[in-house]
């Protein structure tokens, strides 16, 4: 334990040691992620409720989604999770340039994901599958299909918003890392944003099967 006088750079005044500070920061991030689980949880609940009532319509809706692009995006996002984990590893082992490199790679992969998402969204736009007054569906089950696309856009939109925020923070962290702000004792920021990024990945791990895959087996 360090006393008041021996406070070193990066240790806030109200903590006694780096260990205490790191544990607090880590716990804080996890508690925040729990609130994120519940935040997305409201939408997942809506999805489960409506799918249980209108499975056929949801199957029709999922057939409209591009499974190839969805699968590629899943791979891209998991890849970005890997580079993020490696960035944290680099911080733990004190490799300054490697931190920057892995974070930039993470941002890049995130960008690819969002780019593909834009392609998907614009295809939906052309097919009048974007919710709102322009929504148009020729086949059966029009109300249920529209509900599916409402949920699709809200869920993937909220997810994409989380990615954009994450990429912004990652950029700041990369700059800080370049300036040498992190050390093996003190890299809570890298670890925190890492946890956040993995969480965003996990949300997608569930969104992909729920939106793209379930109901695929049903012939329509």
């Amino acid at each position: 334990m360090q006393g008041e006088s021996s406070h070193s750079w990066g240790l806030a005044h109200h903590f006694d040691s780096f260990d205490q500070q790191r544990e607090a920061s880590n716990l804080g991030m996890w508690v925040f992620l729990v609130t994120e689980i519940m935040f997305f949880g409201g939408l997942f609940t809506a999805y489960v409720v409506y799918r249980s009532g209108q499975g056929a319509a949801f199957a029709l809706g999922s057939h409209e989604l591009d499974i190839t692009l969805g699968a590629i995006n899943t791979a891209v996002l998991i890849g970005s999770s890997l580079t993020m984990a490696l960035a944290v590893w680099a911080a733990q082992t004190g490799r300054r340039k490697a931190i920057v490199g892995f974070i930039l790679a993470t941002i890049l992969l995130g960008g690819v994901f969002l780019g593909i998402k834009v392609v998907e969204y614009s295809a939906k736009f052309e097919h009048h599958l974007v919710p709102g007054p322009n929504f148009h569906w020729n086949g059966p089950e029009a109300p249920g299909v529209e509900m599916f696309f409402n949920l699709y856009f809200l869920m993937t939109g909220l997810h994409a918003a989380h990615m954009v925020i994450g990429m912004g923070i990652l950029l700041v962290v990369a700059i800080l890392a370049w300036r040498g702000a992190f050390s093996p004792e003190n890299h809570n920021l890298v670890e925190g944003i890492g946890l956040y990024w993995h969480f965003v990945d996990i949300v997608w791990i569930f969104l992909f099967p729920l939106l793209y895959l379930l109901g695929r087996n049903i012939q329509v």
Partner: protein
Amino acid sequence: MSETITPVRTYLVVFLALMVLTAITVAVAFFELGPLNDIAAMGIAITKACLVILYFMHVRHSSRLTKVVVVAGFLWLLFLIGFTMSDYLTRGMISMQGTIG
């Protein structure tokens, strides 16, 4: 208490496992397995999420408190979905036309 550093090799193995699971889940989706389709898709998603949580997010080597926090988060999500569905799945189960004895 200091951090446990996960070796790079572990990260790569986990990444490969996640890729394989993704491929499996996509492939399975096209076969008609009845209710097993949904179970497989969700089972694989949960497995993938667990891998990410345990290895990428270091929960495997984290304190008991962190583990409790993670479990509590998903438990509460289950409360939300489960108790809401307790309404939707049982609507109309006590028949409104029943006679009282």
